[in-house]
């Protein structure tokens, strides 16, 4: 995934990450300040490729940071950032962002035929049995309702072709879907509240 402004931002980050740590709470604020550069200072990401992490589930944020650091989930952008984090940083950042309100992006509902296609795909796999009735997830299962449209599409496609390899179950599941299904699911979930 290419990000137009990523390289520029990373330069700025380098200096911020090197800043000396003070107390734990300050420390989290300081570490979180880095994230804001992309994930947004009111929780609205600066770019459609970047996921919302404000109000995301705590266990899930932690596990993703862990996987990004381990390289189980590959990302040219997030990988190097996660690599600088210690386990305690990840735990603190997860708690910090999980406690923030989820930003409502008010993404438009897709047309009827797309909704129908998405609903068929959802019913076949009972996605809500894990992501829950209102798509808000719990603990280590992510909230997907209202997530960035373009990010959802890209990450589901990445699961399917194996480039996002940190959850074989989601990969196996999405392998049973076509491009059109994934487009429909992304549009549907983005609009779901």
């Amino acid at each position, binding site marked *: 995934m290419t990000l137009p402004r990523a390289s520029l931002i990373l330069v700025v980050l380098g200096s911020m990450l090197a800043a000396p740590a003070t107390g734990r709470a300050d420390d989290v604020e300081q570490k979180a300040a880095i994230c804001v550069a992309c994930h947004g200072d009111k929780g609205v990401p600066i770019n459609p490729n970047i996921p919302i992490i404000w109000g995301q589930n705590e*266990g899930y944020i*932690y596990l993703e940071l862990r*996987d990004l650091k381990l390289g*189980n989930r590959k990302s040219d952008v997030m990988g190097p950032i996660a690599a600088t984090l210690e386990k305690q940083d990840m735990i603190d950042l997860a708690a910090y962002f999980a406690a923030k309100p989820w930003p409502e992006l008010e993404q438009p509902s897709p047309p009827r035929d797309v909704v129908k296609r998405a609903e068929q795909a959802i019913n076949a796999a009972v996605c809500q049995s894990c992501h829950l009735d209102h798509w*808000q997830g719990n*603990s280590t299962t992510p909230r997907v309702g209202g997530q960035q449209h373009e990010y959802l599409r890209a990450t589901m496609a990445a699961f399917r072709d194996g480039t996002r390899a940190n959850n*074989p*179950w989601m990969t*196996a599941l999405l392998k049973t879907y076509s491009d059109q299904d994934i487009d429909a699911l992304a549009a549907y979930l983005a609009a779901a509240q």
Partner: protein
Amino acid sequence: MGTLRRALMAAATTAGAAALTIGGLAGSAGAQEVTTGILWGNMNTVTQDLLNRAADDGNNFLMTHGNYHQTRFYPNRQINTLNVRHLHPAWIFQTDVMESMETAPVVINGVMYVTTSFDHVYALNARTGEQIWEYKHKMGPITTYCCGPNNRGVAAYGDMIYVGTLDSKLVALEAKTGKLVWQSQIADPELGYSETMAPTAVDGKILIGTTGGEYGIRGFVKAFDAKTGKLLWTFNTTAENSQGVWATTDATGRDLHRDIAAEKAAYAKNGDPYKTLGGGVWQNPSVDLATRRIYFVVGNPSPDLDGAPRPGDNLYTDSLVSVDLDTGKYVCHFQYVPHDLWDMDAVSATVLVDVKDKDGNVVPGVLHGEKTGHIYVNSRKDCSLIRFSEAMVPQENMWTLPTKEGARMLPGANGGVEWSPMATDPNLGLVYAVNLHQPMNYFVESAPYPSGKLWLGGAFKTIPTEEQWGNVTAVDYNTGKIRWQVKTQQPMIGGIMATAGGLVFTGEGNGLFKAYDSATGAELWRFQAGAGVNAPPSSYTVDGKQYVVVAAGGNTQMDYKRGNNVIAFTLP
């Protein structure tokens, strides 16, 4: 274990701390008879002697499966075949959590302890259903569990109540107040460990296993010090030499279609897979105090459907295991399904009864209802097989290998018997099990170990065009023959209880809670609970009055209608 379709976790919204302490109540018990006549005397302390005699205790229900032998046979006959038709609700208690209930109520001197999904614990007045206290576990950020945020109940010992939690902790509470005394981390939830089973308390030890067979854990049973929470011993349920004897058939002699040469080559090349081999333990061990041994069963290997990363018999998955109560040292084992590729594992609680061996001699036996649909009768001495019962559910294409396209086999992956505990009637020589019939296709899809993430190695899917149903089955454990069988509308999950009144009680996903004549299977009574009755019933007696109690909270795994009720029944 579980067929993972419904890891549903409804956000459990709860009111503020309901810290109604019993301290105030107990102090004025005499003055406030009407609302607080809960405790008689100071008989709250659960002594070892009381627990040892649980099987003959006609007042209490001291552990989730009644007694150390886990017979789920309640010795009081006040409610019986003649009067059960008059049974009616005495009270209904509503918990704060509207989600799957698998709790088996424990009752001690008029106080009942029940648990809910997301690990709330309640102490209730067993006569009135009034709440005495509620404990809400402060859940850690990471929880990983396959089959719903369930909890199957508490253990009581001394002045404390013990419960396992989804974030893999063992928690000790003051029985009088629900106040937290200590908590111990059992294992790392990040690696897929979680607690849904009830602990077992014996001789100053709290025994507990773990879930996580769907996540590449290394399973175990651990013993903790009841007073301090200190770990005393650990028995790992996957052996460091897990290859076993390269068995080509299961315990019933059916061909497993293994490619032993290929497995041996993989084993030589990659080494023993024991570190991520799974082997969860879903139910309480039974305890034989005479020999100081415990007996439990071990669940499926990880990944569930893909044998490639785990050559060998995968000991001790899908096995009966006995270990020494005091040291946790291995005594004996018996594997039901070597190198399981279908999640046909062992999850229901073991039951200790005396059985006739092949020569007609009465010997100490251990019963287990397996997902294969058979009840296995083994010797307690060396774990060897004495007999297995007739199949309680249809079996087809066993053991056809899972494929990329999906291969049909019966039973489906929820098995003939799930975690649901069985009951026995020693007078009739019968064991009662609740069964599922759910045709499924088995798919295999290889993936490397995903560091504590769901690792099924494929999928099991129900076949929408095929009918599903359930059974209540009574089996003569001295012959293995089915004595009677009753069909139910839906696959059964939850458990069963027998009483000296000639009855068995069990509930269904459609909300029906029924009593059957334990000798014949004739239905004698039913009640519509309004939500799935998918938890094991218990019985108790206070002020000379017998009650039957059961939770009606539905089930996540089977998607049975959720509720939040605990319902106690009695005679007019």
